[in-house]
């Protein structure tokens, strides 16, 4: 069903049409704004409403998310969310929901196995200490492998829709640049410089200072280790570059859309705005901006603010008026001083939250300049811990 579907054009733009028509939804944005949960909710909604095979590919090893999806853990291999989990939540999905979590090390190993020209090279690379360090610890490798794994799943499996959650990067754009950076890296002239002396001990006038310094800083043995590692990697050069370019093309393709997730707090919002603009500048498809944890609209109500001011200023009077009736509700509730404290707390709390709500509303009005679909999600008073919770979140976004 996946391969045969025409991905576009979409009549009008709505969040729902994204889930119905796109093949890849990339959830991105600053850290700590509910990106993973929003991605999971998108997957759940797509499976519920549009059918087909939906995969949520996450980078966040959140135990709670696995629990919410009714899985006893999520790994590098995709697993289907059991239909019983949906049934237990009183839901009847039209499609299937699958989930997988990115395991950087395992994915790198799989990549090496795929591209290695022969078994010996493969084993040598897998055993190389530098490789082990790169695949396990090297920060940017995470960005690249997330996109690589997305490409692999997209091209080799039959999912109708893949919702992918992006790694928490230092810079929200790192993962977009990762394929190109890797391609550049392997075609770098410096890489060839480094490999030359290892092969021939031939160092010319131009490269000599570089080696002198590299040697003094890093030590000869380490330099040799690096060289060996890259000579081995050279054998996979063509495959790697081709692949990195294909990953880049997939992200640019119109079957892919980006969903920027943020809150209305200052720092995350600025990051999300920058990211949205950058997506547009790169001619990538910005499908939606989802704003989480938005305070309720009634906090902005000017009439309510007047009432709050009155409640605070006339607290004595109101407390005196209310105390007798309160005393009749239950013993001990009729103490005037206590009633007064409660009234003042209620009024002040309202006025406090109102300051934040007004600031957020103002911030949000700037976002209205961005023509894409904007969805806001209220502050949930409880955490999301099950499928029903994800649906509740999804309905806020998609209805």
């Amino acid at each position: 069903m996946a391969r045969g579907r025409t991905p576009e054009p979409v009549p009008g733009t709505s969040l729902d049409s994204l889930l119905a028509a796109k093949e890849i939804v990339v959830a991105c944005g600053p850290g700590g704004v509910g990106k993973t949960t929003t991605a999971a909710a998108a997957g759940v909604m797509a499976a519920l409403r549009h059918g087909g095979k939906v995969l949520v590919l996450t980078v966040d090893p959140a135990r709670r998310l696995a629990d919410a999806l009714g899985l006893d853990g999520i790994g590098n291999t995709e697993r289907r969310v059991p239909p019983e989990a949906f049934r237990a939540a009183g839901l009847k999905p039209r499609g299937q929901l699958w989930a997988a979590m990115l395991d950087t090390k395992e994915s790198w190993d799989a990549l090496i196995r795929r591209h290695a020209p022969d078994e010996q090279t493969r084993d040598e690379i897998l055993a190389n200490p530098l490789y082990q360090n790169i695949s396990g610890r090297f920060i940017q490798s995470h960005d690249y492998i997330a996109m690589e794994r997305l490409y692999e799943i997209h091209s080799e499996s039959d999912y109708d829709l893949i919702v992918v959650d992006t790694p928490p990067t230092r810079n929200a754009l790192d993962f977009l640049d990762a394929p190109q950076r890797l391609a550049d890296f392997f075609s770098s002239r410096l890489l060839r410089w480094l490999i030359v002396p290892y092969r021939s001990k031939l160092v010319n006038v131009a490269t000599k200072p570089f080696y002198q310094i590299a040697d003094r800083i890093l030590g000869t043995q380490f330099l040799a280790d690096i060289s060996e590692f890259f000579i081995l990697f050279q054998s996979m050069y063509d495959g790697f570059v081709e692949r990195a370019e294909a990953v880049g093309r997939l992200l640019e393709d119109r079957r892919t859309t980006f969903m920027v997730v943020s809150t209305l707090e200052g720092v995350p919002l600025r990051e999300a705005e920058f990211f949205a603009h950058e997506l547009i500048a790169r001619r990538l498809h910005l499908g939606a901006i989802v704003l989480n944890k938005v305070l309720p609209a009634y906090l902005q109500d000017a009439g309510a603010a007047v009432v709050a001011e009155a409640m605070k200023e006339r607290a004595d009077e109101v407390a005196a008026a209310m105390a007798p009736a309160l005393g009749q509700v239950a013993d001990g509730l009729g103490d005037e001083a206590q009633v007064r404290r409660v009234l003042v707390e209620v009024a002040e709390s309202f006025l406090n939250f109102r300051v934040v709500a007004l600031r957020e509303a103002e911030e949000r009005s700037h976002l209205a300049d961005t023509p894409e679909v904007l969805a806001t999600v209220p502050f949930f008073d409880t955490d999301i811990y099950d499928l029903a919770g994800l649906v509740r979140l999804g309905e806020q976004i998609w209805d």
Partner: protein
Amino acid sequence: MTDLLDLRLVFVTGKGGVGKTTVASALALFASQQGKRVLVCEVDAKGDVAGFFEASPTSFREKEILPGLFAMTMDTEASLREYLKLQLRIPVVGRIGPLAKAFDFVATAAPGVREILTVGKLCYEVREEHYDLVVVDAPASGHIVGQLAAPQAINSLVKVGLIRTQTDWMLAILSDPDRTGLVAVCTPEEMPVNETIELADRVREQTTVRLATVVVNRVLPELFGHQEESVFDALSGPGLRSDLTASLGGDPTPLLDAARLAVTMRRTRSSHLERLRAEIDPAVPMLYLPYLFTRSHGLRTTRQVAASLGEELGY
């Protein structure tokens, strides 16, 4: 155990969005208000630190933005230049041509090089005692362990060479609980609490740095005591609603709803706080900073947070 302000090098980390930069800026500000000479260094180079002090953009060259308070932005290439100049006495510039490219290459090829240059520069400032306190607005908790463990990582890869000899003195500074500490910032929400607990474990297992303090940011105020809440429930019940409306001369529903939301939010968050306290080593102090109902995040806010931090630290 050494007080937070008596340390020489403090890394401030936390999950994205919890206010890591706010706390780093406030800590630096408070220390400088106590008469210390302080350097605050932003590692992620997003330019947020300058924003929190309403100062012009910072760079690798530290500059005094408030009396006794210096700010800089980490730039690993500039750090490499400084290192080569100071340590190797190699007249770099002009000799090896495109240093940026060469550096990019080495940094990409050798994992940990970028990290060691960052940690190296910070430790250098501590060793030379240029400041009483260096506060680092460090990478988010996902990346901080890689940063702090860089000297060991390099040690295990590089057996000889200058880098190897350089890592020893850095490790000595990082491992000294009287000089170096990590501050983990979190908010009383589920994911940040989970990540902080995980971070504490990973820091203990993979680095030699001590977790000095956990700062819980954005703690919501407790609105009511037990009986006050009963009063509130009765006031918001249908029986008294019309009396209250009449007495106030306006509809109190939005106020009562807002207070209900505040109470529920505070309650959900307390359960996460209890879990955090139970999972973190009792010897690690925990500081609480209030949720700020403010318009923006400028210097005024930084001063407010610094004041709360000072109170929590017992000043």
